[in-house]
């Protein structure tokens, strides 16, 4: 009798959870063989989303600093605000990719929202450009780590799955953009540093106006 009772309870519970409400249309039966991305690679990718967002907020802080009335470097501010939006776009591109691969279905742990920039004040524009170049170098290195893990998953319990497409995407699109951006930044640092050898304030002033035209 007890068994029957408990069985009835279990069945009602199942029946209740699978009942369609106006808002919920029950569990789906979608084949999942196509979802082939392995967990360690997925974790790295999720981490990279956060890294791109962190870089975005760091650039936002740079933009904010150079917008100040007593700093007054609108060209630098514009450059860094643009960089902030670019980094945010990178995060969105990674998210879109994960959605395409079917791996990303739950989002609650995808983004840690309380991102505080590490630095909020810079001595001058040159210092900020150097920091930006360093930041980009770190991001590049982290992308390379993602590539490594996605080529040969680290965890012992996982199948050895070389994620060719993701690796190609990261190499072809992301690294390409990183290297181009880094060259651009390094060039700017070089130009500004040379000017500032003899014309410290004037060099930075002129460079700022130049950045505003870009």
């Amino acid at each position, binding site marked *: 009798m007890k068994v029957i009772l408990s069985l009835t309870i279990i069945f009602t519970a199942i029946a209740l959870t699978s009942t*369609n409400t*106006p*808002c*919920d*249309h029950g569990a*789906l039966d*979608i084949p999942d063989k196509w979802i082939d991305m392995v967990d360690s690679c997925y974790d790295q990718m999720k981490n990279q989303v956060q890294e791109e*967002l962190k870089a975005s*907020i760091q650039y*936002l*802080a740079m*933009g*904010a*600093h150079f*917008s*100040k*009335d*007593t700093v007054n470097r609108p060209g630098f*501010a514009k450059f860094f*605000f643009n960089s*902030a*939006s670019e980094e*945010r776009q990178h995060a*969105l591109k990674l*998210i*879109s990719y994960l*959605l395409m691969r*079917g791996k*990303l*279905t*739950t*989002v*609650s*742990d*995808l*983004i*840690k*929202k*309380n*991102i*505080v*920039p590490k630095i*909020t004040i810079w001595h001058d524009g040159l210092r900020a450009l150097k920091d930006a170049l360093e930041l980009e170098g770190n991001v590049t290195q982290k992308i390379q780590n993602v590539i490594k893990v996605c080529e040969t998953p680290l965890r012992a319990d996982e199948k050895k799955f070389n994620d060719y497409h993701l690796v190609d995407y990261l190499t072809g699109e992301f690294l390409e953009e990183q290297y181009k951006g880094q060259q651009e930044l390094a060039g700017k640092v070089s130009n500004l540093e040379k000017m500032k050898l003899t014309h410290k304030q004037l060099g930075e002033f002129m460079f700022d106006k130049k950045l505003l035209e870009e």
Partner: protein
Amino acid sequence: MKVLCVFVSLLAAAFAVNNGVCYKGIEEFCSHDKKEINPEKCNSKYGGINKALPHLQEYVKNHIVLNFEYMLMSTYFGNYQKSREGFEKLFMDLSNSKWEKAIDLIKHITKRGGEMDFTKMRANIPNNNNEVYELYEINSLAKALEIEKDMAEAAYHIHGQASERSKDFHDPEIVSYIENEFIHKDSETIRKLSGHVSDLTKLLDSPDSSLALYVFDDYLNKVSIV
């Protein structure tokens, strides 16, 4: 005559508050062969910016956080199980708008001599895994409606304080900025969201609720929220 005297001295006092420090500093800089000048003396602060600043900074923080939250809601609707392109677009549009507004607010704060305090990003942001971003379609719209109303109220608060006719608070420039860039647009978005919730509630109250959602999602893909 007395009145004129009082008026003149009041005027002089008013100028002294703002202009004395900068000009005097520059005079010293020019006459005494002083190498350094403190640029802080010649800042762009006037009016009620000091009182408005903490609220504006908080407002920026909320924009940045909401940019992330809408991003998550959009992402959830973009997964293959939900597969709701219209909802994905709606929340991404909201996310983009919050991000752009955050940048615009920072620019405006600095225009008025203030600065963004990023340490505010640390406080009061719940980061728990309670899955509040994984919502049913109608729930997500209801949530967005409430968020947008809260943000509109926050804009009213800044506006209200800057409208006070007392010396440290009154700031018509901030009032006008908040009105033009936020208050009118907020009302548009809130009205649209309210309309969406109203429509979808009616549509879902039928045996064809899953078809209704499909049709409504398709509709959302064609209209704009911001």
